[in-house]
């Protein structure tokens, strides 16, 4: 089974995406299954081993956090953009990275990117530090502690990495 379907989660996601796009006839179900099996095989060398999911409820809770933060981020950025520009305190912040798996680091960076007022711009060559641009920084320590607590810690708990 693991040989036929090396990434079961990825296969399931692909199959459901295909079904959503193409509708629910038996033919589409068959093509969805076919793609769900073939595509992971083709891209397996690029993935380099995905970390397994340890806690599905945890993953759903984290996804909920991220969606909520997207809404908050938009309202925050809207307020900052429409307010006086001279009062913004933009800053580059160096954030230490604890996770080591490349896929998890990229997930972590994506999550920072779509949440309140911060965009990761660069990862140091040893992948221990990343450079994050913050639109309006109040307290550097508090900012670092917040993103590590809110995103990195749950990621480490949910994924086997």
């Amino acid at each position: 089974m693991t040989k036929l379907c090396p990434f079961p989660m990825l296969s399931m996601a692909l199959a459901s995406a295909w079904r959503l796009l193409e509708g629910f006839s038996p033919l589409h179900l068959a093509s969805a299954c076919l793609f769900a099996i073939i595509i992971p095989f083709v891209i397996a060398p690029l993935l380099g081993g995905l970390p397994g999911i340890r806690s599905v409820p945890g993953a759903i809770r984290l996804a909920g956090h991220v969606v909520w933060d997207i809404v908050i981020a938009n309202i925050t950025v809207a307020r900052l953009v429409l307010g006086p520009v001279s009062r913004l305190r933009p800053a580059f912040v160096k954030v230490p990275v604890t996770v080591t798996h490349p896929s998890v680091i990229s997930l972590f960076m994506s999550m920072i990117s779509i949440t309140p007022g911060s965009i990761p711009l660069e990862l140091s060559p040893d992948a221990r530090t990343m450079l994050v641009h913050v639109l309006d920084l109040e307290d550097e320590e508090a900012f670092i502690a917040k993103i590590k607590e809110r995103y990195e810690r749950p990621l480490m708990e949910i994924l086997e990495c």
Partner: protein
Amino acid sequence: MLLELLISAMLLVGSFFLLVGSIGLGRLPDCFMRLHGPTKSTTLGVGGMLLAAVLSSIPDGLSLRETLIALFLFITAPVSAFLVGQAALRRRLPSRAPLPEDFQDLRH
């Protein structure tokens, strides 16, 4: 009637955030700050539009195709922001925020 109101509300919310994103792009002083407008506001902007599309499909059978567009958008927006940021760093574009020293030697 209620559905129509909801759809219009979602369209208005969506266009508001898209507009704010564009205003940010034009108004903020440097490239790094400008990045924030489009990457943030457009996700909720397009999200609102897509939610309106999902709602409008309810009378003739719910269609969830739009949720896929939202998903792809959330996956790709950070990548494009990251790439623009990388280009800006490498071209040493002026920035209001000072760049930390150990990241300055990374530029080649």
